[in-house]
């Protein structure tokens, strides 16, 4: 009897929580809805009170404006190039190191690995002064090099990929060695293809992270043409242009690639984010 009562209470609690959670989820998405619809309104409709919940007349003029009055195309290119190049470098050098830490027995391997992983928690933002001076010495302020290299230095790629290499059988490497394959060949031809899912997850996580990076790119890309899309878009907020629809259009342009990536690659996020945090 009490069991049935309990069951009922349990269901009620569960239903109420899920209704609340769903409502909150929708509420959570509302700012994005407001962002996109505002960007499609004209400059007077966007600040109209009471507001139009759905644009009365659609206009793309804010988007045209962004690309004409601001170097938004160049910003987009900068973002794609910086995120892409950083990510490729992270994968190339990170997978090499991860393979070595996982499969090759060299001296001090564990100590070096511990040092690498210890850096995972340290945000580069707090080292921004020395980092900026180093980049300055390399003459890489306002240059792609300065925007890329500090982002390559982190050890997250090594940590994530080592987890994937660890799951591959050692016998494969030994067999390849007996057949006379060099270490490099074993790595590129046999091991890398096996850890493709790991590389996929790393690619997406890293690309998104660099794309959304703000503080470092703000400091290092000071010339207007060397800004990334995030930094360039943020400058619209200080812009004297009173048209909010125009600013929202800028923010939408910065957000859309990420939304597309998320929709296409949702499962990679779960596997990448949970690496190292959740044991299954």
């Amino acid at each position, binding site marked *: 009897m009490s*069991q049935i009562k*309990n*069951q009922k209470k*349990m269901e009620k*609690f*569960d239903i109420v*929580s899920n209704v609340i959670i*769903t409502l909150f*989820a929708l509420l*959570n*998405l509302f700012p*994005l809805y407001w*962002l996109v619809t505002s960007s499609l309104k004209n400059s007077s409709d966007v600040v109209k009170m*009471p*507001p139009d919940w759905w644009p009365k007349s659609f206009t793309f003029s804010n988007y045209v404006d962004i690309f004409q009055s601001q170097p938004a195309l160049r910003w987009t290119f900068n973002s794609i190039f910086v995120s892409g190049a950083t990510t490729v470098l992270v994968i*190339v050098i990170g997978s*090499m*190191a991860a393979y*070595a*830490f996982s499969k*090759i027995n*060299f001296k001090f391997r564990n100590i070096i690995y*511990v040092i*690498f*992983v210890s*850096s*995972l*928690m*340290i*945000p580069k933002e*707090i*080292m*921004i*002064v*020395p980092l900026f*001076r*180093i980049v300055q010495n390399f003459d890489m302020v306002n240059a792609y090099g300065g925007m890329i290299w500090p982002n*390559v*230095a982190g*050890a997250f790629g*090594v*940590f994530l990929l080592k987890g994937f290499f*660890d799951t591959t059988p050692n016998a494969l490497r030994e067999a390849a060695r007996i057949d006379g394959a060099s270490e490099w060949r074993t790595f590129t031809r046999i091991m890398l293809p096996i850890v493709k899912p790991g590389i996929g997850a790393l690619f997406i996580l890293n690309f998104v992270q660099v794309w*959304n990076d*703000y*503080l470092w790119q703000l400091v290092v890309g000071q010339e207007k043409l060397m800004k990334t899309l995030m930094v360039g*878009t*943020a400058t*619209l*907020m200080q812009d004297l242009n009173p048209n*909010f629809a125009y600013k929202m259009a800028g*923010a939408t342009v*910065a*957000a859309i690639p*990420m939304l597309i*990536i998320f929709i296409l690659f*949702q499962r990679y996020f779960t596997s990448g984010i949970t690496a190292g945090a*959740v*044991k*299954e």
Partner: protein
Amino acid sequence: MKLRRNIYAKENMTGYLFILPQMLVFLMFLVYPIFEGIRLSMYRINYQNEKFVGFENYMILFNDPVFFKALINTVVFVVFIVILTVGFALFVASAVFDKNARYVSFIRGSYYIPVMVSMVVMSMVWSFLLNPANGLISYFARDMGLGAINLLGNPKTVMPVIIFVTFATNVGQAIILYIAAMIGVPKDLFEAAEVDGASRWQVIRKILIPSVKPTTVYITIINIIAVLKIFVVIQLLTGGGPNNASVTLMYYLYNNAFKYNQLGVASAVGVIMFVITLLLSVPQLKSMLQDK
């Protein structure tokens, strides 16, 4: 015997060659800046010259009321955001983890999308929503008879608003982590609980929350560190104001470095933050390196 030593040497050599590229960038852009930062924190730096001043920069910090304001604000941010994030994410994950897959991925997605589109974009939208002249939230406030309000311009409301915006934008990651951890909890535990007639609340309290404790620790630590470096939302929403009511350590560091040209003082802030981060991350690193 000699052959064996050769193989050893060769294995060592190959290993080092494989880690060399990563090692070089790591040393250059991560290890070196740490030591350089510590060194710079003891120098007074002008445009061209540096002068050793010992702990003077730290003394400057401890005599600056704005630094203490930033420190207190940062601690308040950390405490509230972490509690909100862990509490709410636990609530969401424990309620949805055993539901059907499509619903779970809807919840995961709708809370994670703001994380994806970045703090910059979300700050811009919130700045628009909160704008005292023409923002939606201000309109609602007027509509409900609260009069003209300026949530970001009021020293009393600015912190809660920023805490909420940051929490709402970032909670998605914690939700994903908790759902993944809860899906991994062995099924027989729930079955046993069902046989015993445990209520859902008891299941959550006695089985779920203890089972995901490592995830809770991880979420707490990464969130503390993330909040510690909170910057964008401050720059785009308040600029640290009104009257330094929302200035944070990271924002204070940035201003000193790139506005007031106080590189030595900024480095000292960086060193303090580095020590805090290091102390916080020790337990997590231990667990990451142990159970492999």
